[in-house]
């Protein structure tokens, strides 16, 4: 049994139609319940919920404060490499993009680590494309050895791996893994991922199962916002979350909101989403699941970030550079996407404080694993 078996029970078009069939009464019922299920979630992401956004934001804010307090966790990505064997048509690292590629060596990794550490970060997210010959298990192990003395918590957003490989990395200090399905639309997945290992829909879909079996502390899921209808994607993400919470109950979960941004190759999303809709999505997840972590990156604008982190978001990056080496040697290499909010981590942290929230830099200790 894996999530594939569950996903196979659903038809994309039927689900979409059922979301659009939700009425104001369905939304009211969902909002007035004490515990909501994925059917209530459909109502919350439906067009019928749009007039309830203010109420949803207020609920999301208070539920989030109850669980997470007046705090927001701070993290930063460290791009180790922009080499990639995949041809994802929406991504700047697409193999077809003819740009010089970089894989950071040990010295470069340490330089980046020192800059990041000087900002105050204790949580770091390692990011790569998918190029296992250069950035495979051994490369990651070495990176963990180098970085563990610098950071309290190390997470990764890299190619999907095998259960045993995740276990080996946990022994080296891995805490959490982020793996986005990009789209849950099986029929159309191949259009976006025509070649390379990533074209295997099922292998990617079952990665959170392998992470659960490996016992990682936290798994982050999500879809790439802009590829397909966000409401339908959101439902399948919620379904995935609900399956994972029941099956791998010792793992913590997080949802991210990667929204397509301009990049080299300039793919234009066919299903763009407004800020208003993105906020509806964030608050809908929160109202359905009071405990799930919600994470926001610098893909979003200042205005959106400064407000949204109070309305459901529990962890947020700041000062990110999406090109390998970009912290110690700015604009040196190909970026994954253009950062929308270019404020420094300290500038952003002072905004957080000015809104009456505490930026939390450290919420894990290596002695706990």
């Amino acid at each position, binding site marked *: 049994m894996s999530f594939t078996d569950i996903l196979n029970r659903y038809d994309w078009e039927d689900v979409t139609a059922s979301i659009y069939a939700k009425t104001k009464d369905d939304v009211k019922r969902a909002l007035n319940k004490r515990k909501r299920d994925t059917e209530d979630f459909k109502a919350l992401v439906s067009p019928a919920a749009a007039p309830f956004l203010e109420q949803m934001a207020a609920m999301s804010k208070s539920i989030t*404060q*109850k*669980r*997470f*307090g*007046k*705090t927001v966790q701070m993290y930063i990505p460290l791009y180790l490499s922009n080499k990639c064997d995949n041809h994802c048509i929406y991504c700047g690292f697409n193999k077809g993009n003819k740009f010089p590629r970089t894989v950071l060596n040990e010295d470069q990794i340490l330089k980046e680590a020192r800059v990041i550490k000087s900002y105050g970060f*204790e949580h770091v997210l390692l990011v790569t494309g998918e190029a296992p010959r250069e950035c495979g298990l051994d490369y990651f192990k070495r990176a963990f050895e180098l970085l563990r003395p610098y950071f*309290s918590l190390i997470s990764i957003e890299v190619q999907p791996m095998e259960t045993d490989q995740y276990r080996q990395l946990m022994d080296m200090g891995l805490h959490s893994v982020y793996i986005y399905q990009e789209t849950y639309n099986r029929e159309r997945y191949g259009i976006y991922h025509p070649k390379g290992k990533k074209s295997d829909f099922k292998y990617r879909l079952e990665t959170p199962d392998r992470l659960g079996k490996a016992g990682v*502390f*936290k798994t982050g899921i999500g879809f790439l916002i802009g590829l397909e209808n966000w409401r339908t994607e959101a439902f399948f993400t919620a379904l995935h979350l609900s399956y994972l*919470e029941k099956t791998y*109950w*010792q*793992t*913590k979960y997080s949802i991210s909101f990667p929204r397509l941004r301009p990049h080299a190759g300039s793919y234009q999303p066919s299903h763009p989403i407004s800020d208003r809709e993105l906020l509806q999505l964030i608050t809908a997840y929160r109202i359905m699941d009071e*405990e799930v972590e919600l994470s926001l990156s610098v893909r979003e604008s200042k205005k959106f970030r400064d407000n949204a982190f109070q309305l459901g978001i529990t962890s947020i990056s700041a000062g990110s550079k999406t090109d390998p080496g970009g912290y110690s040697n700015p604009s040196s290499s190909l970026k994954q996407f253009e950062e929308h909010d270019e404020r420094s981590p300290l500038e952003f942290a002072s905004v957080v*404080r000015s809104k*009456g*929230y*505490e930026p*939390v830099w*450290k*919420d*894990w*200790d290596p*002695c*706990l*694993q």
Partner: protein
Amino acid sequence: MQPLTIAGKTFNSRLFTGTGKFSSSEMMEKALLASESELVTVALKRVDAHSGMDDMLSKLKHPHINLLPNTSGVRTAKEAVFAAQLAREALQTNWVKLEIHPDPKYLLPDPEETLKATAELAKMDFTVLPYVHADPVLCKKLEEAGAAAVMPLGSPIGSNMGLETRHFIEIIVGQSNVPVVVDAGIGKPSHAAEAMEMGVDAVLVNTAIAVAGDPVTIAKAFKNAVNAGRMAYEAGMAGISQQAVASSPLTSFLDD
């Protein structure tokens, strides 16, 4: 009001507090001072205990405040024992609030692992305060294993729902030879007062203070509620009668 003694240490305040979820460490300090709490729990994972520069710890340096490191984040007895040893070294205290929750969603305590870790830590001369379900049998076993106090939950942590487990807490209070501290779920001062009236020795409050509109004032309100509840308990409250008893229709024949 009688002072409370746990493992030979005397507390004038029966309100224990936590340090998470505050909007700033300055606000935390103000609220904790207003609460007059003398035992404050700190998550080991949140502090940088080694550098001596930790912002939160620096705000807790007051003569009347004792630190109670907690093991939040561990999933097994083995990890908990390891974390407790590090906490002892880093924070210079052998007190530990034992929290073992393998379930990161509801943060519910694992009874088997908690019992195992309590026995082990007690042998290593720790003062162990285990966070557990309101399970009277488990609390007796923890006492036998060497717990310095037991900390049954009132309702799920952070839920502010109050004493949903009150009937079990009453049994625990009635049976326990070690102090009983209600931890988790206390959402308002009246919940704290209710627990104290029942004869609970102390309560631990965090979310309800940290997330309140005005944490300093609510901290004072909790202090007063805890004191009021304790005073009432010590005074011995009048019983509640179910109905007015004007005459004695069932027993008056005895006087005939």
